């Protein structure tokens, strides 16, 4: 199989072979990261622009690192240092950047579908680094990669995702990456943040964290936006923590070798107790390390093909 995709906008239309292709490529990239000199010349002469309309130091840094490890020139363009505040439209901003002939545009935007929109108007490859509440494909892939590394497989595993399901783009990508590889997914959160329609994905929905966690092989805790409280999604952070915070006692319901994951940044003591965040079974830092390998894989794959010839 060869890689024919020009953009990575989301995992919703990824075939299992493609997901596997990325994972396999990421494994080779991970090997590069174990070397003394953690850099290969694969993307020499290529330019990757990180276009970030939302603050996200870790995803941006991860893409930046991935690009640099592949010897690409990486330029960061974020809303705080740009002309966006001057009322420029998204398309105008993107076209301005495209005029500088990047090969790959990595975009993070608060509006769902923004990368899809740009992909129809620009000629460079586009990687979605998170769009609104839609998808965060590289996160979905690195979550899969992390679980594969920890467990050797995902098929048949019970994986619980706990937190603000409604607003989470991580969930919408995990549903595709983990779901398509055969995981049994459980989505858990307060009913106000757990849209019923999500049952159509085949996931099991519950507002009871004990049910979600019981016998789970992996638990992905989502960051709760503290400001959601103001819009009445739940009564208080204290109450949220009591119902949906993962602590030792709850974690003991999971399988003995269960792993804990979190896309970050963590609210320590809110969705995840302090001790669990750092425990042996936490794979949170593994996720960060895997993230670079997975993003290297995506950038590398998109840099091939005649479409990348700028």
């Amino acid at each position, binding site marked *: 199989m060869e890689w024919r995709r020009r953009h990575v906008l989301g995992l919703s239309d990824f075939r299992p072979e493609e997901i596997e292709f990325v994972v396999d490529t990421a494994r080779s990239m991970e090997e590069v990261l174990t070397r003394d000199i953690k850099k290969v010349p694969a993307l020499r002469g290529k330019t990757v622009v990180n276009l970030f309309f939302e603050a996200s130091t870790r995803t941006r840094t991860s893409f930046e690192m991935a690009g640099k490890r592949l010897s690409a020139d990486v330029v960061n363009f974020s809303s705080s240092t740009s002309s966006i505040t001057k009322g420029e439209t998204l398309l105008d901003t993107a076209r301005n950047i495209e005029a500088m002939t990047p090969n790959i545009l990595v975009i993070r935007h608060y509006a769902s579908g923004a990368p899809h929109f740009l992909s129809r*108007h620009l000629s460079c490859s586009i990687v979605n680094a998170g769009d609104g509440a839609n998808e965060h494909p590289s996160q979905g892939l690195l979550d899969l990669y992390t679980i594969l590394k920890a467990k050797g497989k995902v098929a048949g595993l019970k994986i619980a995702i706990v937190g603000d399901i409604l607003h989470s783009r991580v969930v919408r990508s995990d549903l595709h990456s983990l779901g398509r590889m055969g995981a049994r997914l459980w989505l858990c959160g307060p009913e106000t943040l757990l849209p019923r329609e999500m049952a159509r994905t085949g996931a099991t929905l519950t507002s009871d964290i004990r049910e979600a966690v019981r016998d789970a092989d992996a638990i992905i805790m989502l960051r709760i936006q503290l400001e959601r409280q103001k819009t009445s999604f739940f009564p208080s952070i204290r109450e949220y923590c009591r119902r949906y915070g993962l602590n030792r006692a709850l974690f003991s319901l999971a399988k003995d070798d269960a792993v804990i994951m979190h896309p970050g940044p963590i609210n320590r003591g809110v969705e995840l107790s302090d001790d669990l965040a750092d425990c042996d079974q936490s794979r949170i830092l593994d996720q960060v390390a895997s993230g670079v390998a997975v993003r290297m894989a995506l950038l590398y794959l998109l840099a091939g093909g005649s479409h990348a010839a700028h």
Partner: protein
Amino acid sequence: MLLIRGGRVIDPASRRDEEGHLVLSEGKVREFLAGEAPKNFPGRVIPAEGKWVVPGLIDMHVHLREPGYEWKEDIRSGTLAAAAGGFTTLACMGNTKPVNDHPEVTRFILDKARTEGAVNVFPVAAVTRGLEGKEMTDFTELSEAGAVAFSDDGKPVASALLMRRAMEYARPFGYLIMTHSEDPELAEGGAAHEGWTAQRLGLPGIPAAAEDIAIAREILLARQTGGRVHIQHISTRMGVDLLRMAKRAGLAVTGETAPQYFTLTDAALEGYDTNAKMNPPLRGEEDRMAILEGILDGTIDAVASDHAPHEDYVKRCEFVAAANGIIGLQTSLPLTLALLAGGKVSPSRAVDLLSAGPARLLSLKGKGTLAPGADADVTVVDPDAEWEFRKEDILSKSRNSPFIGWKLRGRAAVTICGGRIRHSCQSGIDTDG
């Protein structure tokens, strides 16, 4: 003098549906003739064999954007699109700039329509000053200036108290209040119908309840006040159910829907197509079926396009930031005629929805009928014409339609307004200057 020869004359207001000939003179319908066509007719003859001859279509819900947003549409371009779509009368909403909350604005629109309009235009004035939902407009002055109804369309009247007062105050004078029914808090920040599609695309949802609650509110206020209210662009299943219930209870509540709500569902949003973005949003299949049911059983009184022109660039952006609304004047007729395919909607019912119904709702004298003495507004419909709706066929200044590229069936062959031919795609029949 004009003779429309040999068509199927469908005039639900006079319960007529038969082959014959229609004579127009001096801007009025003179008579219907059955049998042989008159020989040596001393005037123009429009052959209509194989076609339908119906009262000029009335779109009771359009945005002509003039004054204030002439780059999106103006009275000239909007009425030309209307004529091409078979419409001879439009009721235009008041969310212009300035808002039509003052008789000067109403008169401006009417003057413009008289001098530049291709078809009749009846302004709808705002219910509240500046559409701000705080103070009522001067209903009497606006009505005397020519406003046919009142609506804050584009925005709901958020205050139940103000809505109550408006209905109550308007009641003795017979002024019609029309509502864009939406609970603003429930709908806040939403960009798509709250359902599977919105979940899948990660779009903030607008729950059906946001519309249903507001419709229920209008109905309960109509009951409380004995007033009359017309619900605009109904898109939900419960909305239809509530209206049906209100009618059964004998309340003076009526409702319209738009072709998009019985033609499309939120599945059209796939790929973040901003031309499928509107408010109320395209709903689920269950809602679409309920709208069809409401049309079949007479719960829904009219089909109106909610023609809402927008320039390309406010649609060429990320979905949540895109403007709401689509144009509809040139697609409303064929999309409504598509309802005939199942055999449940009769041609006469379709004409009622697009002409007689709106005329009744807006109390437009001499419109929506072909009875002798009625205005000479006539649409000759070719029900079998198959055509593709192409971008270059759009007469509106804006092209925001999800139906571009659709193969449609049925169109206006000739549109006659006040006895003058305003549109023709029939060979040998030219339009009047």
